[in-house]
């Protein structure tokens, strides 16, 4: 028994000492530097100022891409709550922004409701959808949830394709854009700012959730479900909550997408969309908020940069991902070592 224990101990010690690479130490230094509130807030303020001033100097195309980045930041952070925080695999996330987009689209187009009033309805619909999908499946192991969400994604798309209220295959066309304090939201810059605000809110809420009682509960569940349950954490309820919050993020982003595009069709919510978002989360580093933002940026910008090489860009994108996943399975964002 004693021998076994010393073995164990040396193994633990060895593991702890393994991180002696100068690069890792440098990153740890940055982390420590960033812990200083003054440094953190001045860096963030500078970054925000640049982002706010960006539309004045750049092209429409660049604004379009950046708006798409913010949209992806929101949905990726939403999925990150499900996948990264709570450790649940969801393969049909696009369905949740379909729920938001169609709710807003239908209410504006068929009932003439103001856009801003459709947002609470969109949230409500996301909660209902989240409960309907998560309620029965979250009691099961996470693999089952992946299959059910995959099915849900396809069902939502096919339902939208075949229902009259969703405009069948043509979708909803001519969704009226709203006004905000008398300003009509028509230019790309307006949407750039709208999605930037959403993205900042999403980042803020993600951090707040992460550093809360709920965030800690999710971390525990991800680490060891049984031990979490033994600590008095209601595992099913905590997971359901994560699933619903993630869905709400997606639905709100979908609502804004509906007015930006003014037209939505079932083909906007393909399985590949869900996979791209999941990819961004995994690529950046599950559960790490800056990593997920980086991942969102990567999946939007990469195909744009390589647009020149036409149909081969997805092939290269795939190859890069493969290499990344082999050499950095934990994602782009570095881990902190304590």
């Amino acid at each position: 028994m004693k021998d076994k224990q010393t073995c164990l101990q040396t193994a633990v010690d060895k593991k702890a000492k393994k991180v002696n690479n100068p690069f890792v130490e440098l990153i740890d230094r940055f982390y420590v530097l960033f812990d200083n509130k003054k440094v953190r807030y001045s860096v963030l303020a500078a970054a925000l100022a640049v982002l706010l001033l960006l539309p004045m100097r750049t092209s429409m195309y660049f604004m379009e891409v950046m708006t798409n980045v913010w949209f992806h930041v929101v949905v990726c952070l939403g999925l990150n709550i499900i996948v990264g925080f709570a450790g649940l695999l969801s393969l049909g996330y696009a369905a949740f922004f379909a729920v938001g987009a169609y709710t807003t689209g239908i209410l504006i187009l068929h009932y003439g409701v103001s856009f801003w009033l459709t947002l609470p309805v969109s949230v409500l619909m996301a909660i209902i959808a989240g409960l309907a999908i998560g309620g029965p499946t979250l009691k099961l192991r996470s693999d089952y949830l992946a299959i059910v969400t995959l099915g849900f994604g396809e069902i939502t798309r096919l339902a939208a394709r075949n229902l009259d209220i969703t405009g069948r295959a043509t979708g909803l066309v001519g969704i009226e854009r709203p006004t905000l304090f008398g300003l009509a939201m028509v230019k790309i810059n307006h949407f750039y700012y709208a999605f930037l605000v959403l993205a900042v809110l999403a980042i803020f809420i993600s951090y707040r959730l992460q550093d809360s009682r709920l965030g800690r509960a999710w971390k525990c569940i991800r680490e060891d479900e049984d031990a979490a349950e033994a600590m008095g954490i209601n595992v099913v309820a905590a997971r359901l909550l994560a699933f619903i919050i993630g869905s709400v993020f997606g639905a709100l982003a979908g609502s804004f997408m509906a007015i930006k595009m003014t037209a939505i069709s079932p083909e906007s919510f393909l399985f590949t969309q869900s996979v791209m978002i999941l990819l961004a989360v995994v690529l950046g580093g599950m559960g790490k908020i800056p990593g997920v933002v980086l991942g969102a940026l990567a999946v939007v910008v990469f195909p744009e940069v390589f647009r020149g090489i036409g149909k081969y860009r997805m092939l290269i994108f795939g190859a890069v991902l493969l290499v990344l996943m082999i050499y950095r399975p934990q994602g782009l964002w570095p881990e902190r070592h304590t």
Partner: protein
Amino acid sequence: MILEVKDLTLRFGGLTAVNKVSFGIEEGSIESLIGPNGAGKTSLFNCLTGFYRAQEGDILFEGKSIMRLKPHKITTLGMARTFQNLRLFKNLTVMENVMSGMHCRTSAGVAGAILRPPSQKAEEKRIRDVAMECMDFVGILDKKDRLAKNLPYGDQRRVEWARALATQPKLLLLDEPAAGLNYDEKMQLIELIRRIRDERKITVFLIEHDMGLVMKVSEKIFVLDYGVKIAEGTAQEVQNNPRVIEAYLGKEEENAV
């Protein structure tokens, strides 16, 4: 009686792991469950804490049946447990591990997390205070910011005890707490178990293989063999019980063959 078990039976298919076991644990006592390997001790523990669902019998905690409750409910009622094989949250810090125990004693939800009203801040402070106190109690306060997986084995055990104490239990179930500990650590464990009872007024019920430890610390011992309770009593009574000796060492006739 803080805990009463009545005719508890647990079957896995054709195998009866726990067979009509009845016993009671006095409030404020230190009691133990012993038995040879495979006697059904951990299965019985898992029934008590809600991880397994027994088919027959009843379990009363402070007079109320907890047979059909989920583990997190049972913990909330005031029964905490540790695991035979360490089940720490390995990639979390010691502090975060211990803070998790306070989950069932606090209530902040989504709105509290996002808006951080004063009530939530006060609650967070309370969680930290309790966690610090529990870590201090078991003697790992100086390692609070280390990742659980980077601690030596003995310290990992302590984290588990601190985590269980942070749930503020009335009854603490320890599943083989001495497994893998060296002699000094075992002596400290005995002292700790006594302090848990004397200073914190928590009833302690443990499963243990280490006879020396069990005999030293327990006021009452139950012996389980093939899922059946074969004896109960003080350390001395149990040690001299022929059925217990038989269970551990085998019958003389059998040995002769």
